[in-house]
């Protein structure tokens, strides 16, 4: 099953490679990984999307916690949460495609952020499923390039991940 793990870790050189190394050394899956510093510059916040059986996810969580630089780990799946991913997608926007792409971007609440005679670059934010759905919805042959950030997640309501 797909899980979103939120990790708070020391913002130190090498911390990221420890996390990534752990996943490859123990043959865990990384579907996506995002990381950046938080409002507290000594801390980074990472979101990892992974999948595996309950046993594997339990081990991943424990192994992450075991890393000295990891401060906290939560599995967002354990309660209500919000996830967002951003995609920049460059599409061919020629002739009849141009109108169609604009319409699709609107339907998915995307924003066209760069325009040339032949292309649009669309910024789209949502769950990873929504971004997938957009890619499915448009004609594959018009896609020139996609860049995705990977999902970021946060608990709903009062639930916070902090030290």
């Amino acid at each position, binding site marked *: 099953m797909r899980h979103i793990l939120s990790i708070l870790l*020391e913002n130190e050189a090498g911390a990221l*490679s420890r996390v990534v*190394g752990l996943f490859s*050394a123990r043959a865990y899956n990384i579907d996506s990984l995002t990381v950046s510093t938080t409002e507290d510059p000594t801390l980074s916040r990472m979101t990892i999307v992974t999948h595996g059986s309950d046993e594997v996810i339990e081990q991943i969580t424990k*192994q992450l*916690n075991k890393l000295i630089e990891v*401060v906290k780990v939560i599995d967002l799946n354990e309660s209500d949460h919000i996830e967002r991913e951003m995609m920049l997608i460059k599409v061919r926007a020629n002739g009849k495609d141009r109108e169609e792409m604009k319409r699709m971007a609107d339907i998915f609440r995307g924003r066209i952020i760069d325009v040339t005679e032949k292309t649009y670059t669309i910024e789209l934010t949502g769950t990873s499923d929504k971004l997938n759905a957009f890619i499915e919805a448009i004609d594959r042959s018009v896609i020139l390039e996609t860049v995705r950030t990977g999902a970021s997640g946060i608990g709903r309501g009062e639930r916070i991940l902090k030290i």
Partner: protein
Amino acid sequence: MQISGAEILVRSLQEEGVEFVFGYPGGAVLEIYDAIFRQQQFKHVLVRHEQAAVHAADAYSRSSNKVGVALVTSGPGATNAVTGIATAYMDSIPMVVISGQVSTPAIGMDAFQEVDMVGITRPCVKHNFLVKDINELAATIKKAFYIAASGRPGPVVVDIPKDVTQRLAEFHYPESVSIRSYVPVTRGHPGQIKKAVNLLAEAKRPYIYVGGGAVQGNASAEVTELVKMLGVPCTNTLMGLGAYPGQDQQFLGMLGMHGTYEANMAMQYCDVLIAVGARFDDRVISVPSHFLSQPKKIVHIDVDPSSIAKRVKVDVPIVGDVKHVLRDMIDLLKQTGQQVPPQNLANWWKQIEEWRSYNSLLYTPSNEFIKPQYVVQKLYEITGGDAIITSDVGQHQMWAAQYYPFKRPKQWLNSGGLGTMGFGLPAAIGAQLANPDAQVACITGEGSIQMNIQELSTAKQYHTPVKVIALNNRYLGMVRQWQEFFYGTRYSESYMDALPDFVKIAEAYGHVGIKVENPADVEPVLREAFSPALKERLVFLDFRTDQSENVFPMIQNGKGLDQMDLPPHMRDLQIAPFENNRDYGNMC
């Protein structure tokens, strides 16, 4: 006053009460060696290969309560140390390894003797550091020792660029250390401890399975007290040997791939299992599904949550330090007066005694060939069971584990998790330095000893009079055994041809060497080696042992704990399968 980084390092090691640093010099650590030259507080032990420095530091730690320290230069010095680091990591041994690194501006330039030590060792250390700022050096050393020894112990690497050792700074050694992201648990959850005790109070066939965590956690006294007060059977893993006294009636021997019949059968058929600092290793329980096919309730005490429910789902996980958890358990048992129902226990012991009566460690004595098991038994007798025994990896290691019933923890030092040939001799040197008055023997094979035989020179220099007990079967015996069983006796590359004359080698290094070919000579020669006359000498005993001897019992890959390959004398016995609720009434 400002002092150099090298001096800061040396002062920090002194602050940690370091007695010995095992190491080997080179360009990147010259500054450090100069600072070592100018101090007297700790001793440096110059090994002959960096791998040996790490093994010696590791065994120094295994045989004491201290953190071992090794020092190596950058590049090849650092890579040579990696096998030693991985060995310590797999067995959870606290150690600090200091490696030199090229100067900070040269990092990443493919500089001379540059290797990314932090990157190379990342998967086989508890933690590692690259110190780029001299002002962080002292605090990093403090953290390294703290991390190495607390929680689940393990090796910590501190990589120090040469320019950091040369720069100047004030020295302040922090008094304490706290790391917000690292807070090991010590006390177990009282509710969980209560559950464990309640399970015992209803148990039909309780069993206590004790591993290396009880040795590392100095919990031998608590283990023994608990087992005694409950009157239950106890087994040790290879790493746990000595945590419970090996000669005691309640001890069933080692379990696992080469465990005793009774220890393995009890593991399979117990109904309440208390795992104490043991990690359900594949060499212990083989296939988890087969192990669990016989229903049992499992309590697992471990300081590392990731050891729990890794291979086997458990009913009562208890995260905490074994010593504390067992103490709390004992106190609770005393308080509530709970015990295992006596009739259950009596029946369980009858079953166990039946298993034990087959004597699965029996071997056929010989007047013609020296039986390796016999050598170990005689060694036990002659050392009064008190020697510190190190070993290498192979058949000899298993015979040492099976036939030398260790009395106390930290008496048996071997590489279990990584299975590193070449561990034994440097480990013996480290153990002897940590225990100057102890008898130290290294049980080895002619294959393994050659992986670090150069350390005979170190032993000479530092007067470590260890006794090398080579069970020389002219084979990579453990490999040969597998080839005999599973590869149609095709002994591919397992014959040790062109063996050196070990007696001459020992003599060339300034030691005593004795070759033993006749079974009748085993005992007198061992007596001689351990006699006062040779007390101060390293003695290398080259026992020419039976080439075809195999280690039994043995659990083949994919087989269960109750599906052992048995020694010859047990093969024709009609052993009734285990029966739940059997009536033991008429058995004597």
